[in-house]
């Protein structure tokens, strides 16, 4: 599924279309493209599930664009996205090549833009996200989103690269010689940044926005045996005993797993989602996992269990979906036609 989706997304013709100068997509147009992309593999989602997945994606991206320290950092966010994608398909050199091509094209097109131009891009993107305040459980739990759906904007931490920590006033005389310094204080608590992120094909991006938000290992409350611990640090899934994130993952996995399983002509036994890197790892983890930590959260159950559903239903009930405005514009129609041909 991953290979199919990524292959479709980084298709050469599709990318060419994307890189043409164009106006901001309407919400309807973007949602349609997203739908087509999500269904470009054997994976299927029903309308309601698709809605929820799309909301999750838009709020996550809104968070990333809003919190960029410098407008130019939205490019670093995109590079973080691509780095993570490359990780998913690191074993498929053909697709990897496609992604690298897109990476190079991004560098070529955007690296030379000025700060003012990046701010214009960012301001335009923010128009798309305006008035969206859907609450996302993982953001609520991490305290990056308030209960009213608005994101927390910290007033501490490193200032953007190229900005000075606020506080200094320098006065010059009419000859241009500095004659006085003064300081002022505010409630903010800023520090100078250590280094700038890399805009090359490979490099340390420094910025954490745009990295896989489900890959952060959270502190485990109870002790684990040595071998399990090693396995846990290698695998990328979230195994922390956090009920909301667990439910979120379960929900996502249910969307992906609980569908009609088509039997391809090749005789494979159908679509099964495994969140470990190999079957052996999954087997091993199941055997060595300490008894007290066996949530069975990783096993995908397409059956509906009332207990878990209650929690999930409550969360789902709290999520609000804004009704998309019908748009008479015809943006992206040729793009959709292109995707139909893929």
């Amino acid at each position, binding site marked *: 599924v991953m290979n199919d989706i990524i292959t479709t997304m980084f298709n050469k013709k599709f990318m060419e279309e994307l890189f043409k100068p164009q106006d901001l997509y309407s919400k309807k147009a973007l949602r349609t493209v997203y739908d087509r992309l999500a269904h470009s593999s054997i994976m299927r989602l029903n309308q309601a599930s698709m809605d929820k997945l799309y909301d999750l994606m838009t709020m996550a991206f809104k968070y990333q664009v809003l919190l960029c320290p410098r407008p*130019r950092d939205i490019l670093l966010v995109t590079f973080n996205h691509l780095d993570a994608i490359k990780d998913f398909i690191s074993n498929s050199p053909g697709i990897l090549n496609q992604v690298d091509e897109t990476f190079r094209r991004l560098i070529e097109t955007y690296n030379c833009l000025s700060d003012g131009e990046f701010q214009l891009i960012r301001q335009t993107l923010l128009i798309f996200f305006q008035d969206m305040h859907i609450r996302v459980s993982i953001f609520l739990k991490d305290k990056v989103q308030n209960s009213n759906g608005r994101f927390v904007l910290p007033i501490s931490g490193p200032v953007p690269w190229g900005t000075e920590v606020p506080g200094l006033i320098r006065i010059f005389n009419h000859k241009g010689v500095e004659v006085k310094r003064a300081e002022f204080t505010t409630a903010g608590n800023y520090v100078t940044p250590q280094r700038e992120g890399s805009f090359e094909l490979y490099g340390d991006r420094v910025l954490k926005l745009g990295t896989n938000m489900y890959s952060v290992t959270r502190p485990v409350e109870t002790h684990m045996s040595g071998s399990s611990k090693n396995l846990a640090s290698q695998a990328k899934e979230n195994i922390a005993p956090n009920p909301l994130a667990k439910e979120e993952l379960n929900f996502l996995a249910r969307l992906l797993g609980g569908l009609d399983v088509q039997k391809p002509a090749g005789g494979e036994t159908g679509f099964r989602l495994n969140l470990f890197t190999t079957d052996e790892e999954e087997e091993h983890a199941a055997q060595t996992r300490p008894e007290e930590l066996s949530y069975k959260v990783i096993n995908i159950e397409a059956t509906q269990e009332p207990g878990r559903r209650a929690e999930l239903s409550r969360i789902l009930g709290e999520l609000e979906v804004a009704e998309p405005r019908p748009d008479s514009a015809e943006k992206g129609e040729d793009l959709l036609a292109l995707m139909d041909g893929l």
Partner: protein
Amino acid sequence: PHPPAPPHQHRPPLPRFATSQFSQSRPVLPVPPRPSRPLWRPGLHGNVTQSPRAFASSRRDASPWRRRAPGERGGGKGKPGGTGGDWGALRGNGRRGGPYRRERSLTLRSSSSALYNNLAVLCPPARPPAFGAVHGTTLSLLGNEGPPRQLQARGGGSALSTPLLTQAAWCELPSRVLLVLTSQRGVQMYESDGSTMVFWHALDVPDHPAAHSVFARGIAAAGGRFVCVGTSFGAVLVFDIPPKGTNVMLNEVLEQHRDPITDIAAEQGQAPDGAGDLVTADDSGTLCLWSTGEEFTLLGKIPGSGSTCSSVTLWNGIVAAGYGNGQIRLWEAGSGRIRAQVSAHARWIYALDLAPLTGKLLSGAEDSFVHVWKLSRNPDTDDIEIQHCHAECVTDTQVCGARFCDPAGDTFAVTGYDLSEILCY
């Protein structure tokens, strides 16, 4: 003097200016920058002399804003049950002394967009102020006589969808007040209550989207008779406004900037000799100083140093400019020299405003902070000073508009991205 270019001239796309390689570290200025000599026009003004003038309020004593002790109520305006006491708190009430306190909030019909200078204020004498904030394709107007109103960007040509607005501002001329809107298509001018459109000017927009966006941005009344509007081409359009009626004419097109215009400001106090009465700013941080008239004259150019100037004001020959790197710089309009540099904000500055009676300066930025400063100019020593007076933290909000609501700067209003309110202090 260059002949005015004919209007509606189609301009080829601007060449891309490669910025300094960002893989090198951006230089943080350790010494005052030496701006290269601005373009002077010899013979027109001869030697620039700074005649001593008595400028208003050049008090250099300690800040008049006495700190309140914890628990003490601030004086002045505000509800008695206000947020007194915890003035050192980090969040929610990040204020520092001073008589400014949070007052009422006005509800907007739609939230404000993330655009530079996205709050327009009209303060008619002895009447409550009127406000305007841009949301996408509409302008929300508040506080006029009558119900809140919304104005739409005017579409046109082969556009399939309504264009986005970039800015709105009231232009106060001696004879009339106009409400001016700039968009991706052109310039709309209305009567001050937004009831009637007076004039529409269409930009030269290509049929298919070009690599560079096309839009108008930057609005100011100038010279008692003109309205100046900037464009993404870098050109500044000068419109001649009749005392009444709709016979607005495009008088001149000023072509000194090579990057999109961000803001334009007219002199709000008394300009010293040779200082000019209009400043225009652009995406590259370049500032141009002009003297207005039947024909505008370029007096000087202050080159940018890598950071966008998003907002600019001009007062008593002092240019106050706010930049994308969070700095406020004061420039002397007459000589083009830098006179002060403030590390004011931790994020991109979106709005500056000036109170002409007192020289107070208001700055708002994406870092959630709004600061009040005091500019002053000593007539004897000709020192230009800036002091910090007050700070407000608008929690979890990227401020995109901030304006004083009276000429002395005792009250101000603020709005932010995604905020459906105008906060008054």
